[in-house]
Every structure is written in C-alpha cells, then in structure tokens.
C-alpha cells in the first residue's frame, strides 16, 4: 500500500494546498513560505485537515491526527510527512 520512497517537497505541498483549499488573495505560495505559519497563509485547521487527507491518499503515507495542531508551518508539516513515509516503510 504505502509508497515508501516518497519525498514530498514544498512545491508538492503548495500545489496540494491550492487544490484542496484554494489560495488566499494577497498570498504568494510560490514565494519563501516554508517557515510562514499556515494561519498567515490563510489556512485554518480545516484547510490543513483537507490537505493532509489529500497527501495521505496521494502518497499513501500516514500522518498523525495531531499534525493539524502541531505543524504550524510548511516546514514542520513536510518534516512530519516525510518522517511518516519512512516509518510506514
């Protein structure tokens, strides 16, 4: 089931954020956003839940439920995802 060699990048994440939750006006997701809190990018916990669901389906990784609360920035979420893909191996 899970793809074990996946490495999700910031580009992948911003693409999925756009698909799952849209893009806030006045926010440039292509800019230097890796350490910008999601809340400043216009994404609330529901938007994160939505994108985390998509990542789990697309990459076959398991991401802990707490990620929505704990991962406040794209970097933190990517760390969790990429750690998840390793542990699922």
């Amino acid at each position, binding site marked *: 089931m899970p793809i074990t060699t996946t490495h999700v990048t910031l580009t992948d994440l911003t693409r999925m954020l756009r698909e799952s939750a849209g893009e*806030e006006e006045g926010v440039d997701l292509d800019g230097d956003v890796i350490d910008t809190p999601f809340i400043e990018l216009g994404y609330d916990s529901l938007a994160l839940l939505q994108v985390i669901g998509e990542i789990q389906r697309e990459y076959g990784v398991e991401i802990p439920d707490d990620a929505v609360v704990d991962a406040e920035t794209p970097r933190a979420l990517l760390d969790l995802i990429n750690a998840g893909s390793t542990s699922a191996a």
Partner: protein
Amino acid sequence: MTATTVVTGIGITAPNGLGTEDYWKATLDGRSGIGPVTRFDASQYPATLAGEVPGFVAEEHIPSRLMPQTDHMTRLAMTAAAWAIDDAGVDAAALPEYGMGVVTAASGGAVEFGQRELQNLWSKGKEYVSAYQSFAWFYAVNTGQISIRHKMRGPSGVLLTEQAGGIDSLGHARRHIRKGIPLVVAGGVDAALCPWGWVPQLASGRMSTAGDPARAYLPFSPDACGYVAGEGGAILVTEDAGSARERRAPQVYGEIAGYAATLDPAPGSARPPGLGRAARNALADAGLTPADIDVVFADAAGVPDLDRVEAEAITGLFGPRAVPVTAPKTMTGRLLAGGAALDVATALLALRDGVIPPTVNVAAPATDFPLDLVTGSPREQDLRAALVLARGHGGFNAALVVRRHAATTDPASGRND
C-alpha cells in the same frame, strides 16, 4: 414607534437571468429559463426539465479559498448577496459588524455537495470525504458564508419552511430590525439539481413529468400537471428606514409593510387551508385593505388541487377577478427556498417600474378559477402595493406585503451610482 423596514439592495441569480437587470428584462420579455436538465443525467427519472441558472462561472465570483468549501448553491447565494450589498451601497467594513445580521431560507441544504461526499464515503471510504463536508452541506451554510465574507455578525439564522422560506426569512429580518438591528441581509437561494435533490421532490407527486418546456408548468391552467423545479433565488438588503436614510442609501425599492405565516391543518381536518388566513393577516399587519393591493404574486403550485386552494384564497379576499394575479415563476420553475425571495424581489421591481410581469405559457386560467391572471405580456399599471404568497411543502403558508416607500421618490436620499 415601530421601526419601518425597507429594502435597499437586490441581488438575483435566476434561471432566466444572472443579475437583477438581466433577470428583470427577461421576465418582462416573457423569456423562460426552463429546459432539459444538464447539471446531472435526469433521463432515468420521470421529471427531466428544470430551470438552471445560465452562464454562471463560479471562479468569476467566488475567491479561490472558498471554492473547495462551497456547493453550487452557496456560490450562487454568495454572488447574489454580494450584488445586493453592492446595490445597496453598503460598505460593510465601515459599519458596526454586530449591527448587521443575515437570515436566509433553506430547503434541503447543499445537497449536491453532500451527495458527492456521501458517494465518496460509501464507495471509497472515509479518507475520501472532504473535511469541508463538516459544514458545506448544512442548512445554515449560505447564512454562515455570507456572514463571514461580509463580517456581518449580528443576529443571524436560517429558516426551513421550503418554498415559504423566502418570505419567512424577510419576516424574520424585519423582526430583527424592529428590535434595533440596523441592517439584515435576507432571502433565499437554493440549488438542488442533483439526484438527491430530485428524488424527494418526485416523491411528493407534485413534479411535472411533461417533456415540453412550454407545457410542463401551467399554474391555474386547466392543463396544470405539476411544477418544474429550478435553482437560484434572490438576496435582499433589508434596513431600518431611518438608518438607510442616514447613510444615504442609493435607493429604496420599497417597504416590507406586512407579513404573516400560518400552518395548514392536518390532512383530513375539517378546518380550511391556511393560505387565505396568512394573506388576510399580512394585510392587517400592513394596515391595508384588499383595495390597497394592486397585484398578487401567486405561489402558483401548478397542481390542480393546490391551485384551487390558492384561487379560493385570492377570490375570497379580493372577490372574483378583482385584482391582477401573476406568476412569473412560470419562467424559472419553483426555486424551493429561493422562490418566494425572488417573487418579493420581482414585486419590488414591479413597484419601481409600474409594470406587472406576465405568467407565461398559460393562455387563461381554468374557467372555475375567477382570477384576473396577467398572461402573455406585461401589464403597465401604477402600483402602490403588492401581496406575495408562498406555500412550502408540509403545510407552510406565508404572505408578505411590499409597498412603495416615501423615500423612493425623495431625491435628497439619492446617491447616483
């Protein structure tokens, strides 16, 4: 003294027009928006016609962030609300956010969104259900999204009385205004053109199964054979007349002068249906007599028994052929929670322009319905007050009286844009 409630803004998304003037022109031209269903494959169902809103490109009206979390219904409602607020010249950011409320009508919630997600749940599993299902299909979603987008945090709510809801929401808005809230966005927009929205309506036995758009929905006609469903509706900005004057609202379409709602007795009861009583109570509430009413916008069920109840309610109050009656919804179909709100908007435009839009496709009412039905083409007439009637499945009746407001002709209140 009780506050006077006026309508200062109108936003319309209707099957025969997107935007108020587009809709109004089509309605006066007698142009119908009823045709074969395209939003889903209706060929396997007995009813195959609908009124669909034409040319609506959601991305042109709805921010990207809201696209994944909104149903087609909510996108239409948010668009109508934004137009109404703009039409009223309201800068929501400049007004106290707790002084503005939102009350909309709903029938079944955002069933198209809900159906898709439940299909995902059933066929693929819970991981495939949108996180936004948590609210996107919910009855109050239009109210919530309008409230959030325009930062209107005053008293808000949703009313579920099916087709009567468009009127009930305006009655409720007036109640808030009388309690001191300066502005309430109200009305209804519905869109249930999907199998989940279709099947319960079919089960009522009231949907037309005719295949010819010109013969499918013929209220008061001897050939009445049910109704055609449609999507869309209207959102109105209602305001305290004093507040509207103070902020120099660009126009006042009219005053919500009277409102009443009743419930029909249980089936089999010896008591009469409640529609006539709702109409009488609304007139009494407005302090008007039948002679003051210049036009009636009918509920127009298109079902012979229900048409008879309505014809008797109208003739019982006004006398035979004593008041012009019209059903412009013959051009849109019945819009569930959006229908009566659109009728109120239409009545206000009729008051503004002194013209009664026609009932289309009906040559004349059945001989035993002594109604002065406005058929064929619009009728020009000076109009002071209109009575709008609506019935919701399950026995809901609602009646609203709108009349011209003095400020309508007061140039001092005008702002030209």
